[in-house]
């Protein structure tokens, strides 16, 4: 318990520091003004989301290989937390775009790909609700998760190519292009803070799933006898 409280406190501090950095330390961007600061939240969420889905992918592979329930627990935890971060990306995109471009949504390559990514993992979670038997559910969702993650680079690549055919306003400019060193530091720090938040959330969700998995096991055994 104490360890959790300590970990949560550390994460909270990191996030606070990152927010401070984004709001006050980073220089104001020339053309877009203050609203651009949402960039630190947007991009670090995007990178964190992808990292989390990668963790989900590894958990999927491990489950198919070892068939231990804990990999399934990790996979669903990572998928849900990844989805949260991806939602943040999809929400902050329009919030940034509207004051700058006057439109809520542009079919910008990264945002569109992120949307497809979001849909893929929503499907992953929906699949899980539609298969009742726990071992079968774990195996099928792991296999779909593998297909989905392998698809991700193809989605990003093809949509980016598509957008070069019909260019649209690019949300957030190029990530990393034209960034001052201070901005880079703030961005990387934000990402670090986000990753620590992700670890905390995944860990909490994992423990919840572990307890739920165990009680489910006991209940099913009791009913079976």
């Amino acid at each position: 318990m104490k360890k959790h409280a300590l970990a949560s406190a550390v994460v909270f501090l990191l996030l606070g520091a990152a927010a401070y950095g984004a709001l006050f330390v980073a220089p104001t961007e020339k053309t877009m003004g203050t609203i651009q600061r949402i960039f630190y939240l947007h991009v670090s969420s995007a990178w964190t989301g992808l990292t989390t889905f990668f963790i989900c992918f590894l958990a999927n592979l491990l489950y198919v290989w070892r068939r231990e329930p804990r990999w399934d627990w990790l996979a669903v935890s990572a998928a849900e937390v990844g989805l949260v971060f991806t939602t943040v990306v999809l929400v902050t995109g329009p919030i940034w775009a509207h004051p700058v471009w006057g439109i809520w949504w542009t079919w910008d390559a990264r945002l569109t790909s992120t949307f497809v990514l979001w849909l893929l993992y929503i499907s992953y979670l929906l699949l899980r609700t539609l298969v009742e038997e726990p071992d079968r559910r774990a195996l099928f969702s792991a296999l779909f998760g593998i297909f989905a993650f392998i698809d991700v680079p193809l989605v990003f690549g093809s949509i980016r190519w598509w957008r070069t055919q019909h260019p649209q306003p690019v949300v957030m400019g190029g990530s990393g292009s034209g960034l001052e060193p201070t901005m880079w530091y703030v961005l990387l720090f934000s990402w670090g803070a986000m990753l620590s938040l992700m670890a905390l959330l995944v860990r909490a969700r994992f423990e919840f799933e572990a307890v739920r998995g165990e009680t489910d096991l006991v209940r099913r055994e009791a009913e079976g006898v």
Partner: protein
Amino acid sequence: MTLPAVSPVGIRFENIDKRYGGLYGLRQVSLEIAAGECVVLAGRNGSGKTTLLRIAARLVRPSSGSITFLDKKNGATTAASQTGFVAHATMVYDELTAEENLLLFAQLLGITEPAARAETLLAEVGLTDRRKSLVRTFSRGMRQRMAIARALLNEPSVLLLDEPATGLDPQGVSWLAGTLRQMRDAGRTILVSLHGESEISGLATRAIRLEAGSLIADTRTGASLPSIFTFAGA
């Protein structure tokens, strides 16, 4: 039926567990079936008979434990080509003819002269005159014969049958019992699950009973045959 001679093969189940989520389909089942034995497997619905047979057929992987096929000297042998499996379902395609079905499976198995083997088996199960009919048009008894024909394609040493008499009329049961008797006499090892005593259970050299996934009685260890079947129909 003229059956080729087979080298007898036994089965050893060691500490087989099969879990579905938290439910135990099979619990620590250990059993050794000697080559050439004809064993009847009894038990209620849900006792694990189907699971045990499907594990023997290599359709289901046990959660733990192992299954080995043994040759006469009790050495392990490769299992895949040794078993023939007859399930509840017919396991043949309704939309193909009897001939097409057997030819397809013979080709898949890599049998050297698939057409000839298919024809032989059709004759052995008495379906030669219906070879060009779609299986969809077959009666239950004829479908069972198709199922057996398919299971015998690779000349298995071990026959696994999951409640094969279900839905058969007395004539069908007689035919099945006669066929199994011939197999037993030709040296094939047979493991057949049944609901209750019948002409088929009379062929058995041994009977065992499963209850809630565990092996609870075995005529080899002294249980009486009728007791194996008590409550079997429940």
